[in-house]
């Protein structure tokens, strides 16, 4: 047993550089990025920028708000007219339909492919008969997920509108495609987190690879899949209005038109419909989620 002698410790240890860990490096990089971004934003073109925190900006906000509420404008504001409510109501309905279609497309796509995007299914853990073909499938499926979710819904819509005629479908497909990648990745991660043992036991009863997927993986993954499905639906209803900007369907198109014509009170009306939709979907989703236990 060594003794502790204070007199031996009077000399300070040599200075050592802190270890450059990945996290520290990342934080420093983030800090640099933050500073650079703000410098860029605050100095960008547009002299308007320098006086952002000024009375002028405040007044502009105030005037805009007044316009939205129809203060000082002639005629009754759109949101106070029942006929306006009715005529825009069917747009809200269309947007809702678009959202349901979109989440349906995304769910179907994800359900078909998600098991092929799970590392443990494809790379030999559960599947002792793994082969290069299946590895290729895995990377291909994962690649599809990455690409479809990297491209924002709006850009998908811009591309799709070339191929599909205007209406609800292009918007729904754009939303569906983007969310297919997101749902797919989330679902694959569910599979990767599953308990392997029941699945391996199933394999020993002689079930084939696909049967193991259908019988062993799918039932266990479905409850969480449904949770993710509802979560994405809530996001989709918020994005459906945006996709309408380009795809001639739902509230978004009308929103864009009203913006061009400066029909401010109509914008308010549309925003209120939008908030009603969002709230409705959130409530419905939370209720239905409970059914899935």
């Amino acid at each position, binding site marked *: 047993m060594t003794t502790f002698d204070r007199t031996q410790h009077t000399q300070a240890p040599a200075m050592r550089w802190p270890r450059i860990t990945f996290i520290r490096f990342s934080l420093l990089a983030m800090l640099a990025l933050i500073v650079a971004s703000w410098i860029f934003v605050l100095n960008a073109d547009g002299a308007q920028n320098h006086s952002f925190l000024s009375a002028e900006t405040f007044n502009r906000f105030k005037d805009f708000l007044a316009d939205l509420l129809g203060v000082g404008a002639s005629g009754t504001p759109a949101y106070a007219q029942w006929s306006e409510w009715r005529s825009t109501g069917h747009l809200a309905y269309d947007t809702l339909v678009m959202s349901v279609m979109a989440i349906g497309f995304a769910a179907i796509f994800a359900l078909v492919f998600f098991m092929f995007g799970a590392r443990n299914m494809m790379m030999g853990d559960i599947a002792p008969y793994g082969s290069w073909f299946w590895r290729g499938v895995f990377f291909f499926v994962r690649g599809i997920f990455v690409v479809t979710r990297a491209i924002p819904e709006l850009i998908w819509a811009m591309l799709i509108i070339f191929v599909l005629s205007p209406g609800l479908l292009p918007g729904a497909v754009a939303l569906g495609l983007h969310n297919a990648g997101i749902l797919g990745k989330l679902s694959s991660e569910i599979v990767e987190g599953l308990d392997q043992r029941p699945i391996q*036991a199933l394999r020993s009863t002689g079930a084939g690879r696909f049967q193991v997927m259908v019988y062993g993986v799918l039932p266990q993954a479905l409850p969480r899949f449904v949770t993710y499905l509802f979560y994405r639906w809530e996001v989709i209803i918020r994005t459906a209005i945006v996709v309408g900007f380009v795809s001639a369907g739902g509230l978004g198109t009308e929103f864009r038109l009203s913006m061009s014509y400066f029909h401010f009170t109509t914008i308010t009306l549309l925003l209120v419909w939008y908030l009603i939709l969002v709230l409705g979907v959130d409530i419905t989703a939370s209720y239905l989620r409970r059914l899935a236990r």
Partner: protein
Amino acid sequence: MALLRTREPETLYSAASCSVSLAAVSKQYGVKEAILPLNLSIDAGERVAFLGPSGGGKTTLLRLLSGQLETSTGTVCLCDRDLSTMPTGRQVSQLVGMIHQQFDLIPNLSALQNTLAGQLGEWSLIKSLVSLVWPMNRDIGLSALARVGVEGIAYQRAGSLSGGEQQRVAIARLLVQDPQVILADEPVSSLDPARAGEVLQLLVGIAEEAGKTLIASMHSVELAREHFSRLIGLRNGAVIFDLPSHEVTEDMLHDLYNLQGLRSET
């Protein structure tokens, strides 16, 4: 309960011809020798228990017998067929079936669906898909569950069943799968003593009825002695003794489980 269903003639095995033999079988994981070269021969219809400390090779040996692991050297023969030459998992599953300590069942599916899964090897993909929603060939499943005494919970979620019930359902699945050799990896270690005895009795009874070979790794020496006719002691990957159960002495067991000289688990 004899064969629950008929099979095509070329795959029909009679239980009487199904012996198990291991010839110079060993298993290595890199440097570690999980199983040292051994020879073993088990006749059809025998009831054998592997005993020994954890990490001694019981589970590895069972997995070699089930075809889940490949041998490093030697061959495993079931029913006069070399296991490594069998092309599909399905053919292997007609020869040998395994039940584990726990987590054999899919928790979200009902007991009946889990039981019927024993037939998956014979069903087409379409049939399997339909069966998820509406179970096909229910009768086999229900009678298997009745044989193990739990037909009342046939439609309950497997995850909500007690440990004893779950093991019974796993045995029912084995009945439906109908392999020639039954392997059991510590089948009752997670159950309390009373249940353990019941379930083990059920397992042994079923194997006897059908004349099938039963090979189990056992944690409890008393239960092993009570229900199995032949005991094999495994320690550090080697067979320490291989005797009829009444010939195994306390000294042998003491040597088997002695902590000194025991290889540490990896």
